[in-house]
Structures are given as C-alpha cells and as structure tokens.
C-alpha cells in the first residue's frame, strides 16, 4: 500500500515540479529521488512497515510475491531513470508530465501486483494503460509516434472491452455475485459455460496485454513507433508487471481448474514463440527486432502460467528481473545510436568497447546463454514445464525457438564485433557507462548465483 500511495503522491509532485521549475536537472533529480524513495517505501512494505493502516475491504492483498516483484520493478525503474531520464526530457517539452505519468504507471503496477478483486485488476490495468497511450504519443511531431499511440489506444480499448465482458461473465458465474478472486475460484464447482467463457476472455485480454500471439499485433507497431525511451519502459517494467498480474489472476482465481485451460496456454505459448522468433529474424531495425524479441520472451514467460508451480513462481521473478535489466540496458544503448538498423552497430566494439561489451552481455542474457541471468530465467521456465511431465513437445519447441533467437540477437554482436564501420553514437557520460556496467554485473551475478539472490530477498522478508 505504501508504494501505491507514494507513487500517486509523487506523480503529483512531479506535475508540480514541472510548474515550479524549468530546470531539467531539477526535474530529473526529483524523479530519481522519488524513485529511490519509492523503492525504499516498498522495501519497508516488504518488511511489514506500513505508513497507513486503512481498511482495504479485502480489495488488495499484499503478499511477498507481488511486493518482491514491486521491488524488482522499482529497482529496474531506478536503473532506467539513471540511464535514460535525460533522454525522457529530450522527448518533448513536457518532461515533468512524462515523469508524472510514469509514476502513475508505477502506481498501477503496484496495484496489479496486489489486487484481490477483478475490479482492482481492471482499474490497475487502466491506470497503467492510459498513461502509456499518452507516452506512446509523446513525440507529437513524429507521425510514427502519433500512429502508434492511436493504434495502441484503439486496440487497448478494444481489449478492455473483452476483459470487461470476461469479468462480467465471471461475475455471473459466481455463486454470490462477487469479483473477489476467492469467490471466482469457488465458482469452479459449477464449471458453467459462463465461467469458461469468462476465463477464456480474461486469458485473451491478458494475453493481449503481455503481447502473446495471436493478440500481439499491437506490440511491434507500438514499440516501434513510441519514443525509444518509453518503449524501453513499456517493454520491460510494464510488461513484467502485467505478467505478474496474469499469474496472480490465474493462480489465485483459476489455479484449481488448471487442467481445463492449460492447453489453451500451451497453444498460445507455441504461437507466441513461433511468431515472435520467426518474425524477428527478418527485421532490419534493431528496435523493431527487440519488439518481436519481447514477444518471444513473453512466450517463455508464459511457461510460468502454464505450470504455476514453485519453480514457475520463483522463475518468473527471476525472469522478469533478468529480462527487464537486459532490455533496459539494450534500449539505453539503442537510444544513443543514431541509426537503429543493424548496420548502425557495425564496428561499435572498436570505437566504444565498453558499450559493445555490455551490450553483448545483455544480448547473451536475452538469448539465454549460461552464466547470464537469462539462462536461469529460461532454465526455471523449462524446469517448471518438465516438472509437470507433460508438454515435452512444447519444451522442445521452445528450445528450438530459443536457438532461432540466437540468430537475431547475435546479429547485433556480429555487427559490433566482426564488421567494419563507423557507428554514429551520441555522447555518453561516464555515469551512463558506469550504470550500464552495473547492469551487466547484476546480470552476470544473477547468472552465477541466481538462487543466492532470490534466497537473500526471501530470507530477509519471510
């Protein structure tokens, strides 16, 4: 609850900071301070120190899983701010408002990681979505940005409709007319068509939000069109948060009927992996490739949903962390590039060895090469699936897709290291590079001692 309140409040603070000061540095500093505070209050929450004790009427339910993710999301956002906050201010004149919107999104993030009723889920997702529509269109003079924004908005609204219909059916299916997850879980006994339809519609709309095929179509266009700095945010923290919501929803509300819907998830995973990986192969723009790769990564993350066992829950935390950090890093580098095509990276290693090296580590992590966090992320997903003893075909399909993913991730590595060229890179500050190195160290550490890190957090707060 701390985080929800604080992020909303700090959003307002950011709004006023724009009114009170024209100094970009001040705004930037305010945002970073706010995020540090947000991170701290969330840690306090994890430790059991709440600022305010209000009767939640069971609308929200805070558990370690969600709060832990919050910590990761806020931590990742902090790194994101440290890397890219100056780029946020470059997008347009409304820098302070962008920060405010991001804080509102983070408020939505902390809601969707702690909802206990579909109403809160709905509100949380809307609080996330509406600022994102705007951020996507933030670069108002850029037609691509406009277009992305409109597309995102129209399709987002459409999927909201689907979600609401699903919620409605579930409401009808409950015995006592309730939106609480417990009551919905209790409705499984009847297994009425209302329940199934509601479940499927929620599956579809949540799949839309996490960009799982065939509901992913908005993703490449929006990620491509949005200002890169916001794409980074959307593709990582927001997406991960929705994933947590997805898993919480299906784990808590539909966990008992998993046999019923597992197969649908399996189909969606297969389609997502297939489309994400295959389509990414032919992309010419790194940014668009990363959009498709985020779809492909979503396919892997969905394994957690498929299985919902301990492996999955531990794994999805690790996965979101690994994925977010690596993607934020890559986008941070991408923002600095003048040419987003693969050729734009040619010869980067020669001219900017540090940037090339850390980018390589990020890419290796995304590809799931051992000794990076990405490996264990994928490892947990595969282990979770194999644990069930079913879906071997899907696991094998997934690893084949992972092999394909190497193709497009390594194209960047090839360009950086093995090709000649004069890459056009914007000025980077020392602190920027230091943060990048910190990111890559985190990735490596997570890759060698994943358990250690998770355990530390678990032991600290459990």
């Amino acid at each position: 609850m701390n985080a929800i309140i604080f992020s909303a409040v700090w959003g307002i603070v950011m709004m006023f900071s724009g009114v009170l000061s024209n100094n970009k540095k001040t705004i930037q500093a305010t945002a970073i301070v706010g995020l540090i505070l947000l991170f701290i209050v969330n840690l306090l929450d994890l430790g059991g120190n709440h600022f305010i004790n209000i009767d939640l009427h069971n609308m929200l339910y805070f558990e370690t899983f969600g709060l832990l993710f919050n910590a990761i999301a806020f931590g990742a956002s902090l790194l994101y701010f440290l890397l890219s906050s100056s780029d946020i201010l470059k997008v347009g004149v409304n820098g302070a408002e962008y920060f405010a919107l991001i804080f509102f999104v983070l408020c939505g993030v902390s809601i969707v990681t702690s909802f206990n009723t579909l109403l809160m889920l709905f509100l949380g997702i809307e609080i996330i979505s509406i600022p994102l529509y705007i951020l996507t269109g933030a670069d108002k003079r850029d037609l691509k940005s406009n277009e992305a924004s409109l597309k995102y908005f129209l399709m987002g609204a459409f999927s909201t409709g689907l979600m609401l219909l699903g919620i409605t059916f579930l409401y009808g299916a409950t015995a006592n007319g309730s939106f609480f997850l417990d009551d919905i879980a209790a409705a499984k006994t009847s297994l009425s068509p209302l329940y199934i339809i509601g479940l499927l519609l929620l599956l579809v709309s949540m799949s839309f939000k996490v960009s799982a095929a065939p509901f992913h179509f908005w993703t490449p266009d929006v990620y491509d069109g949005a200002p890169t700095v916001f794409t980074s945010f959307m593709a990582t923290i927001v997406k991960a948060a929705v994933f947590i919501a997805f898993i919480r929803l299906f784990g808590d509300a539909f966990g008992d009927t998993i046999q019923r819907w597992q197969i649908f998830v399996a189909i969606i995973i297969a389609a997502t992996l297939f489309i994400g990986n295959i389509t990414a192969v032919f992309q010419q723009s790194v940014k668009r490739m990363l959009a498709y790769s985020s779809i492909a990564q979503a396919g892997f993350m969905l394994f957690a949903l498929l299985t919902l066992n301990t492996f999955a829950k531990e794994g999805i935390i690790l996965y979101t962390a690994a994925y977010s950090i690596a993607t934020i890093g890559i986008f941070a580098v991408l923002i600095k590039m003048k040419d987003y095509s693969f050729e734009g990276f040619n010869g980067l290693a020669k001219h900017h060895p540090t940037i090339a090296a850390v980018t390589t580590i990020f890419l290796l992590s995304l590809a799931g090469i051992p000794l990076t966090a990405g490996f264990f992320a994928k490892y947990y997903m595969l282990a979770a699936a194999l644990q069930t003893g079913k879906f071997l075909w899907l696991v094998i399909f997934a690893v084949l897709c992972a092999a394909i993913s190497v193709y497009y991730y390594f194209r960047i590595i090839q360009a950086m290291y093995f090709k000649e060229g004069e890459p056009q890179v914007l000025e980077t500050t020392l602190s920027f590079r230091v943060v990048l190195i910190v990111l890559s160290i985190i990735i490596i550490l997570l890759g060698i001692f994943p358990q250690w890190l998770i355990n530390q957090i678990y032991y600290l707060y459990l």
Partner: protein
Amino acid sequence: MPINYYIFLAVALFCIGVAGVLTRRNAIIIFMCVELMLNAVNLLLVAFSKMHHLALAKVDPNAGINGQIFVFFIMVVAAAEVSVGLAIIVMMYRNTHSIDVNFLNRLKH
C-alpha cells in the same frame, strides 16, 4: 426476465460493436463501437447483479450491488478513456488531417 435474454442481448450488442470495429475505418466511429461494447457489458453486469440479488436477497439485502458499482467504475474509466482517446485522435488529425485508420500504416512488418 430470464437472464438468458439479457445475456444474448448483451452478447449481440457486443458483437455488433466488434463488427463495427472490424468494418469501419474512421477512428472515431471505431471508438464509438468500443463504447457500444462497453455498454453491452454494462447492461449484462446490471442484469447479473439483479440475478444475484434475486437469488441472495434473503441472506444479504445488498447482494449483487457490487455489479452495479462495477458499472459505475466502468463508466468512470470510459470517461477517462474518451478524454484521452479523443485527444489522441485530435492530435492525429492535426498532424495528418485524417482520422482514417487505413492511413495508419507507417508502422508495419
């Protein structure tokens, strides 16, 4: 009224909305069709709320009220969405003098 009627009515309205989204190319009309879908959902929610109320009124006089509250929130959200959505459409129009979604094809493949 049997709840079936409401369900079919709402689903029909919803699907008309969906068909509208699919067939029209004017962004505003598409958006209106989405609103139509939301209204179909609202109607169904109210119907369900009354259904639950009927079934449980003896136990809980307020049974089913949350459905109507939910409708209230949907309206709230819809209003917020409309404000943002129309702003985006207007921005688009300012830049391209068109709100035809078919012309939204700079981003593809």
